[in-house]
């Protein structure tokens, strides 16, 4: 077992070329904060990119930041915050859910896992903000794609291809992201006591309004109780961000839409930020166990139906983000992949990812949603074009 810890793109290239010439599969790692997601890798060697660090370009007025792939996400977020900016895709921190530390993870990892957060519904995921990359393919060749400008259709968008590829196509060495101004302030309106279906309907009203809601989540009673600062009972929370006067106006607009007056509960500024961080990081299920946790993406109006259908057959604890389109599920039993995925398919499709499970469970189950034959074949061909010898993170997405 050799662990390479390159400090330059050239060293990454050498390491991958060595692996290719030796047919020696590599595990591609940053901080390893998401190592518990996906099939356990089948590699004898590791390429640890956590020493490939440093912000190489940051021009706030151009809304652009470039960094070496191993740069800590926290470092980048701090730098941006000093300039009133942020990664608008609100990358979640899997640490607490997976029993690891908080605040770990690299910018390269954020791209490889296509991280996002509650603001996904308005601002997109990592894929929507990546502008350019340099990388080393599994062929042992360095290449670049994209650029440093937002509007660019020159050639295929191979930068996006890295998003959600979990290090199986190329070892990314440098990334360039679009960055955006952070909001001046934020307020969250709480609707109390709604059942799941009523909550989803309410979130649809909010999302269809001109209030520009940037976070819409529903926490049924048990999930709500596990998040600090929420009133007792089920909580449907709607976040509005922006300039002060605008936020006040839009919160009022929402209150009117729901027939609420002065009695309405709102959470502001820092407390609102804490609340959305908890939702983002799946705090209700960050319980220190290895009970299976699923992340299910469906049409916003379908996920709660999935949960109801599931509960007729098994025990599932659930809460919803993305206006209902993202269901986080904590199951009591293992090996319920087939049941769950069958219902997802029946209810209009989407995908279910097993984001937390014991290593044997991850080895035994398809962690990622299995694809129909033609799509699976296309994905396999794409993998082969980048990594014909299956050197990079083999089996991780398998």
């Amino acid at each position: 077992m050799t662990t390479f810890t390159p400090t330059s793109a050239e060293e990454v290239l050498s390491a991958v070329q060595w692996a290719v010439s030796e047919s020696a599969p590599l595990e591609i790692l940053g901080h390893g904060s998401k190592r518990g997601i996906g099939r356990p890798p089948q590699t004898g060697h590791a390429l640890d990119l956590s020493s490939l660090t440093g912000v190489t370009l940051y021009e706030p007025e151009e809304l652009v930041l470039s960094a070496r792939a191993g740069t800590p996400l926290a470092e980048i977020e701090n730098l941006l915050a000093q300039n009133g900016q942020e990664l608008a895709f609100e990358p979640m921190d899997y640490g607490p859910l997976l029993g690891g530390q908080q605040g770990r993870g690299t910018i390269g990892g954020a791209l490889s896992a296509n991280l996002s957060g509650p603001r996904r519904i308005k601002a997109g995921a990592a894929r929507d903000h990546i502008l350019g990359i340099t990388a080393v393919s599994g062929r042992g060749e360095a290449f670049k794609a994209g650029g440093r400008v937002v509007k660019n259709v020159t050639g295929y968008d191979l930068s996006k291809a890295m998003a959600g590829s979990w290090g199986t196509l190329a070892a990314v060495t440098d990334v360039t992201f679009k960055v955006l101004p952070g909001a001046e302030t934020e307020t969250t309106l709480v609707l109390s006591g709604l059942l799941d279906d009523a909550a989803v309907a309410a979130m649809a009203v909010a999302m269809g309004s001109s209030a520009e809601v940037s976070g819409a989540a529903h926490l049924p009673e048990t999930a709500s109780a596990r998040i600090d600062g929420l009133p007792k009972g089920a909580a449907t929370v709607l976040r509005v961000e922006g300039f002060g006067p605008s936020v006040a106006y839009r919160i009022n607009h929402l209150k009117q839409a729901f027939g609420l007056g002065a009695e309405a509960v709102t959470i502001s500024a820092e407390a609102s930020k804490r609340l959305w961080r908890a939702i983002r990081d799946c705090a209700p299920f960050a319980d220190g166990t290895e009970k299976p946790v699923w992340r299910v993406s469906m049409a916003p109006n379908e996920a709660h139906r999935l949960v109801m259908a599931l509960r007729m057959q098994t025990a599932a604890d659930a809460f919803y983000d993305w206006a209902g389109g993202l269901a986080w599920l904590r199951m009591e039993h293992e090996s319920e992949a087939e049941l769950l995925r069958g219902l997802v398919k029946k209810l209009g499709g989407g995908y279910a990812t097993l984001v937390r499970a014991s290593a044997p469970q991850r080895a035994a189950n398809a962690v990622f949603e299995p694809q129909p034959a033609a799509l699976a074949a296309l994905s396999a061909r794409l993998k082969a074009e980048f990594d014909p010898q299956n050197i990079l993170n083999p089996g991780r997405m398998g």
Partner: protein
Amino acid sequence: MSGLAMPKPDAATLSRRAEIVADLARIVPGEGVVDAVNEMRAFESDGLTAYRQLPLVVVLPETTAQVSKILKYCDERGIRVVPRGSGTSLSGGALPLEDAVLLVMSRFNAILDIDFMNRCVVAQPGVTNLGITRAVEEDGFYYAPDPSSQIACSIGGNVAENSGGVHCLKYGLTANNVLGVEMVLMNGEVVRLGGKHLDAEGYDLLGIMTGSEGLLGVVTEVTVRILRKPETARALLIGFPTSEQGGQCVADIIGAGIIPGGMEMMDRPAIHAAEDFVQAGYPLECEALLIVELDGPGVEVDHLIGLVEAIALRNGSTTCRISTSEEERLRFWAGRKAAFPAVGRISPDYYCMDGTIPRKELPRVLAGMRELSQQYGLRVANVFHAGDGNLHPLILYDANLPGELEKAEAFGADILRLCVKVGGVLTGEHGVGVEKRDLMPEMFSQADLDQQMRVKCAFDPNHLLNPGKVFPQLRRCAELGRMHIHAGKMPFPDIPRF
């Protein structure tokens, strides 16, 4: 570029034309096949009208099953296929080939589902961009990307080109607004990417497809997200004595944390052409004119207008008008929206370029363009999506003067080289197509291009779908697949240590 080399027509295909026409007519019965030369004329060019070529035959399928059969048929026989939407490409993306079937998607013109609960629309690819907004605007919704050809361009074409528009700084490009597609691969297989949910898992094939210029697959259905229309929109019309000041104003607006719904700049020649044409009331003495549109709730728009006005004054604006009515806002825009035809009035022909640059490089690029303009003896007017650095220089020329088109093209190529040199790219939203194909090496190394072509190999290993576009030189997939490093042959006597 005028001496554009396209893939050599396949003699065997040309000689089998009658048989191919008959076979396609069996797949798409009725009036789905057009093979008469006079009828095919309508399809010989797209928005890049300098190039014309009659296709082998035109086929207009109506169903995904027909598209699948056509592609499979062509794949098995080694027949090339060029897909086409509304034919508004400005880069020749839908330019036919003599030996290729032109697959026209215009009969896929139905909206299949309007889903307000999930805030999305499912449409066939031939539906126009504006057609989607039209279908939902009664209920207060719209589809955000708004390329200036939105009245004609198809949503399928938008996916192929990753189209933008003046609102994309705030609301994103096509790639950020498409949730899913159904598409047919060259081998006839039908695959679905995404759907009404967010972020299809696995490789981001939807991301790769978007902006792939019809080289990877044929889209047969598109799901897009729709947004609630902003409550109000107001615009500022700001004039500056220099482009540097205009550029700094844009930087300061963004530096203040403001992302306007639209932010457009015009240079002096463009201002004058537009004003002569539509009398929008533009100030004629300034070198740079900025239109800043702010949208959202009235209280937010009013607040931001105050901030932007102050920033403009700080940067030495000589005029700053704020729209007080919807009519006035539209008048501010009228000149900008009419800029292309306006320039068309002062010159027999114009050639529209599409580079993107880091915004701060604007003064340098404009200065470089002025120099080139003198060198080539051709005038140039500029409109600029100032928020995202997307520059549209319009080169004025006269196609009837021998050699002038070639001169305009050489001028354009030099402008794009300049864009790349300052850290920008060859094309922001019009696509590479045939137009910028041979400039790709200005931006990408052979290794970069090879990796892109390998992606093509995963989708279309025989290079039959829209060949001759995007890549300056097509390399065979077998050749691209060859490894330069071989197991056992040791480039590394040792494990690298660091």
